[in-house]
């Protein structure tokens, strides 16, 4: 059982949890993840560790409520408990002083990329952050990132805040403006990571993406998280989660991530029906419309 020290929404349906997990806090490095479970019937959900505090023995995770389980997690509040938290899993990010490094995050990935941006800065890089959101209300951690990075660019798809356009358009501009870029890390939705890979490839810029496939145990035991990198099968949980973006088979990744779409849809509908009994019609309406 791991106690939730603080729980707060960063944006609609995106919640930040600071949880008691002293061993993981002491051990974890940027790029690693935990697997959490909320209750006896719950799924095991892999989540990147977004931050940690060794003195207080806490780690931070950021959860976007998409399916039944992540929506259920986001119902948890300060003082509640996670039934299970295991980690730190996966290999740490490879961090060094590359020169100029760009951390690109999209959606909830913007928050998840935060620790890597910190680590890149600490390693001596001129650190640029590009964070993309659909709209102004979904922009994450802008203040925190500005404290850390040398340059921060916020992009919104609808132009409601910052740069109007996708993260890749901003990236392309930076490249074309002659900024010498030595390293790019990208975390976010698969289409975004693929677009970043396609943008940097012609310029030969070393680019790394953090993959988040379907997982069960997270320790190499099940092989459910397999992906193809450089035409070879890997287990993302033990061989990753970070890989050379130019070698990832994004098509396969996209298809495999759809394996349980039908089941998840059914589970979510049932979940929302159950809430119907407990919560107001308005809340159910709100959840369904998201």
């Amino acid at each position, binding site marked *: 059982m791991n106690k939730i020290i603080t729980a707060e929404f960063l944006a609609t349906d995106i919640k930040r949890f600071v949880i008691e997990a002293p061993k993981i806090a002491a051990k974890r490095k940027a790029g690693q993840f935990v697997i959490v479970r909320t209750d006896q019937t719950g*799924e095991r959900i892999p989540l990147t560790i977004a931050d940690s505090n060794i003195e207080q023995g806490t780690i931070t995770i950021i959860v976007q409520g998409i399916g*039944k389980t992540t929506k259920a997690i986001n119902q948890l509040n300060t003082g509640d408990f996670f039934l299970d938290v*295991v980690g730190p899993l996966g290999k740490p990010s490879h961090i060094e002083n590359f020169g100029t490094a760009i951390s690109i995050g999209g959606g909830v990935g913007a928050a998840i990329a935060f620790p890597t941006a910190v680590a890149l800065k600490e390693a001596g890089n001129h650190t640029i952050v590009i964070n993309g959101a659909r709209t102004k209300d979904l922009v994450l951690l802008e203040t925190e990132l500005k404290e850390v990075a040398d340059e921060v660019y916020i992009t919104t798809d609808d132009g409601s805040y910052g740069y109007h356009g996708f993260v890749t358009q901003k990236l392309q501009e930076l490249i074309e403006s002659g900024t010498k870029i030595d390293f790019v890390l990208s975390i976010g939705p698969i289409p975004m990571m693929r677009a970043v890979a396609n943008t940097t490839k012609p310029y030969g810029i070393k680019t790394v993406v953090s993959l988040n496939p379907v997982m069960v145990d997270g320790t190499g*035991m*099940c*092989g459910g998280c397999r992906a193809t990198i450089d035409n070879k099968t890997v287990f993302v949980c033990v061989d990753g989660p970070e890989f050379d973006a130019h070698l990832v088979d994004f098509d396969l990744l996209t298809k495999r991530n759809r394996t349980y779409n039908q089941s998840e849809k059914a*589970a979510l509908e049932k979940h929302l029906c159950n809430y119907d009994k407990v919560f107001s019609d308005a809340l159910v309406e709100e959840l369904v419309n998201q």
Partner: protein
Amino acid sequence: MPVLTKKERMQIPRQPMPEQAPLERNKNFLEVNLGFTEELARMEAQRCLQCPKPVCVEGCPVGVQIRDFIKLVGEGDFLGAAAIIKEDNALPAVCGRVCPQEEQCEARCVMSAKHDAVAIGRLERFVSDYEREKIGIRTPQVKPKTGKKVAIVGSGPAGLSCAGDLIQLGHDVTVFEALHEIGGVLIYGIPEFRLPKNIVKAEVDALKTLGVEFQTNAVIGLTDTIDELFENGYHAVFIAVGAGLPYFMNIPGENFNGVYSANEFLTRVNLMKAYKFPEYDTPVFDCKNKNVAIFGGGNTAMDAVRTAKRLGAKNAYIMYRRSEKEMPARLEEVHHAKQEGVEFVFLTNPLEFLGDENGWLRGVKVQKMELGEPDASGRRRPVPIPNSEYRTDLDMAVVAIGNGSNPIIQKTTPDISYNKWGNILVDEATMKTSKQGVFAGGDIVSGGATVILAMGAGRTAAKAINNYLTNSEAR
């Protein structure tokens, strides 16, 4: 019961195991075997000749005093019999269900020369169930505390049997488990219908009563390294992490949706209870009215195919590249699978999985095989028959061809010696590794084997660890 002559004993037939009817059980996850009644157990026990030199014991990796417990069963002293078994076996209700007795104790039974062997496994199961159901599992006396602490890495059969022995010898024992439940393969691998999880839980609870501590969600190598366990005050470490890295066949199409490792398929269904989806959140491929094939011929393959059948598969195939005779699965499992409607396709080797544009499995291209000369394993090598390829429609496939060694400990503890496959090298007599105070046993040493062999390794290690701790070699 009257005292029988040897001849009379030999004339009693081996008592059959009552079981759920095949076409009923292949639709539920309840246990297939129902267990002996008291009458059946006493009758079966009468068949034991009470040999002066019981060779059956030599066939038991943990050395259960088989003759002696069966004598008490014959006399109706079932609780006494249970106590005898527990002197040597920390998990009797588990072993009575999943041990391959026909290759071990029962293979040595002198009755098996001319008649059928005494059903030792069924009797073991009966007495341990009897004790648990009638009075609850009794725990043996524990020796005075030694002040020594042992860390056991992995809560599968090797770890649990080692823990059971060491706690009785007075050492403090903590078992570290990476998953959220205790039992390792007994929980995630072996299905409910063959080994009900409440039985595993009861035997684990008995170890807790004895004082064994369990820490779930602890991935040793990541959460703590082996060196950190010593820093945290443990005097010895037993690594029993099993063979936890599934092999795939490395054929085209293996990453299509619907292709599983046996580990993933069984873990979803057993540990995560996907057979109760959506009551439980974790899904698994919906097998209802689908064509399903399992590739492999071991017990894990049988578990997977019988699970698929229970999930509603229309056609559930075992595809195996050798013939029936070479299959490593227990005869009982093969027999049960056949009764339940599983179709066996022998001498058939997959060449390529075929899928659709959305990445879903649609079929498999296979090749017929014939048996050639014996290979290193002593089994006749399957050789492809030219121009024998054909296609079978499939919606789900499970690859059950075994497991390699998990890399996490090796990566974080390079000062232990490993072989080229990542198995830990040990002194066979003591299970000592090349690192001081570190012992290892079970599948991480032997490669994929059985529950009872892992338990035997756990017991051997417990003896060696006890020697190590009491001879104060420990740092």
